[in-house]
């Protein structure tokens, strides 16, 4: 893991964790992402907002190359994480996904025990040397996801038996267990009630200390509460990006203004 922020030697400025340039995404003939340039800062929460179908999920899935699993999907442009081109043929998408974790809209625990759900990633990547090691990773990840107290006595019960909110935190713990640097979340709270949502939001705020987080959300309030930066997408274009406060109080683009005041979308 890269503890020191990468610094551009010439400019002497902080480089972003993720930088995307001229990204185009096509699903067959559909042009889903049009020429998007975006920098995502390290250890901040960046929110993607925009009306349904504008390409938020598509762009998010470019960042860990999940789009590779869709046959008809084609990605063009340049996306770098820590300065390394993730679409370079030398990069193994499978390795990349361990570094860039993902949490999905619907909680999707595996039909295995809580323990095995968390241990799944570390086992695949050989992150533990012993059983004790693995136990520690599991306990640690559950703790970071704020779930440990609730499940510590029933780690061998199926993960699918938890409540929706617990399942989603389990999925976050599962992602954390492989020590990613970036966590992508696609509408992680849309299947949850307000209390479970509040818990997750709290969690996101804590995780910000150690991870770069990108979250797609349909809730303006949520974006305002958890994110420091916000990017607004519309019809496949990135309309504007900036400090969350700026975007919500003082948007420069007319479309952003219409969207956040609820005039469309």
């Amino acid at each position, binding site marked *: 893991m890269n503890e020191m922020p990468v610094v551009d030697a010439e400019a002497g400025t902080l480089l972003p964790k993720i930088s995307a340039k001229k990204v185009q995404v096509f699903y067959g003939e559909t042009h889903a992402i049009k020429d998007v340039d975006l920098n995502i800062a390290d250890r901040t929460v960046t929110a993607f907002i925009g009306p349904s179908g504008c390409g938020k999920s598509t762009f998010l899935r470019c960042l860990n190359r999940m789009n590779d699993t869709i046959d008809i999907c084609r990605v063009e442009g340049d996306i770098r994480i820590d300065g390394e081109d993730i679409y370079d043929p030398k990069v193994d998408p499978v390795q990349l996904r361990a570094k860039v974790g993902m949490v*999905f809209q619907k909680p999707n625990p595996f039909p295995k025990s809580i323990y095995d759900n968390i241990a799944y990633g570390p086992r695949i990547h050989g992150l533990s040397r012993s059983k004790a090691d693995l136990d520690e990773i599991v306990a640690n990840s559950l703790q970071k996801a704020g779930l440990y107290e609730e499940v510590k006595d029933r780690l061998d019960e199926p993960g699918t038996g938890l409540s929706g909110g617990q399942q989603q935190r389990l999925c976050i713990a599962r992602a954390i267990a492989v020590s990613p640097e970036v966590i992508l979340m696609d509408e992680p709270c849309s299947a949850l009630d307000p209390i479970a949502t509040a818990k997750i939001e709290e969690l996101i705020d804590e995780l910000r200390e150690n991870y770069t987080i990108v979250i797609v959300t349909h809730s303006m309030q949520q974006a305002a509460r958890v994110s420091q930066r916000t990017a607004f997408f519309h019809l496949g274009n990135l309309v504007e990006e900036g400090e969350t406060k700026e975007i919500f109080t003082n948007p420069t683009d007319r479309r952003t203004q219409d969207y956040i005041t609820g005039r469309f979308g």
Partner: protein
Amino acid sequence: MSLPILVFVLLALSVAGYVLGRGRAMASAGGDARKLHSLPNYYGWFGFLVALLPAALMLLLWLPAQSVVIDTQVSAMISDRSAAESSRGLVMSDVERVAEGLDLAVDAGVLTEEQAASIRTEFTDVRERLGEVGVALGSDVTSETLQAAQRYRALSSTGDLLRTLAVVAAALAGLAFVYRRAASTFRARNAVEAVVRWILILAASIAILTTVGIILSLIFNTVEFFSLYPAWDFFFGLTWSPSFGGGSELGILPLLWATLYISFIALAVSVPIGLFAAIYLSEYAGPAVRAVAKPLLEVLAGIPTIVYGLFALLTVGPLLVDIFGDGGVLGVGWMGGGTAVMTAGLVMGIMLIPFVSSLSDDIINAVPQAMRDGSLGLGATHSETVKQVILPAALPGIVGAILLAGSRAIGETMIVVLGAGAAARLSLNPFEAMTTVTAKIVSQLTGDADFASPEALVAFALGMTLFVITLGLNVIALYIVRKYREQYE
């Protein structure tokens, strides 16, 4: 009146009911359909159904009742002495054949109606006369049989007449009812819909009742078999050697052993191949391959099993002999002839491949995409995902599919009849000919079997055993599959 004509008359009366119902309703509304409670056609259908259904029901109940009544009356005429010689049932079937022969003779004009009712064995060679019209009898007709047959005919013709009267009367009563009720205020639509609902219920119950009927007939015959042959010897006997002359040994174990052995080989072939094919098709194959391969596999499933049987007999058997037989490629001489457990097992395995693969394919596809995404999103490769997430998630369903395939293998008949041989044998050598439960059911009942002997009735006991085994497997399999489905809903 013969039955087809009666049915025709009944239908004609029902059509009259339609016309009557519709006409009466329109008349009562003064020709204005809007004043009717229901559309005019509903009154028509009401008339049709009321004329048809009670009469048809009457007819359906009458038919078996009449034959039971006649049977008991006629069978009372048979003396205990001749009943003791062979069984009463056999004498009765003779009586029926003679009666049928007389009918044919009258139809053909060889005998007049009076002659048929009055001929005596003392004066006429009845067997020869009936032979002339194409009714072959196994033995000479005794005078007792002939008289019983004549009585049978007399009772039948009275019964038929009464039947006609009863059915027509019921239909006419229906028409009278329609005449009184079909008025503008009558809720014909509701009445028709209620009847339609009952018809649907009836169809559903017929499906269930036939199943019950099949089971009952199996049970009765099995019980009869066990009254002639000890159950212990049947279930635990190690020899199967039926002889219609008596003194048979009817132990099921050699048959059951071969059945299970062949099914095991069939599953050992079909489960890995079918499962891997399903994994390839649902996880790795591109849409183009899928589009071709899936229908091809389904064609394989549609081939009649007799064709597989021929394949076993003519291709696989000789091929195996060339390899494992005397002077074969391996020079081991394990295999004497082409028919063997291995032959039948291999071919049955091929038959089951599409069955296993299409069931497994459905089950693998039912594993939600979210599960795959979750695994891939953690940096698992595709094959790790298949192995560690998709297969475990699909496992209960796949086990269910395997059990279903097993119960098909156990019940399979044509392949073993042609491929496995005819000798009942308890042996471990898969290259030996053996014979299965299903194959023996076929051979015990084909040919001139005497249906009252234990050698024939044993078929029902065999069938019952198979039924219980496959039913058990199916119940377990369905339970597992259903349980698995719930997991994702």
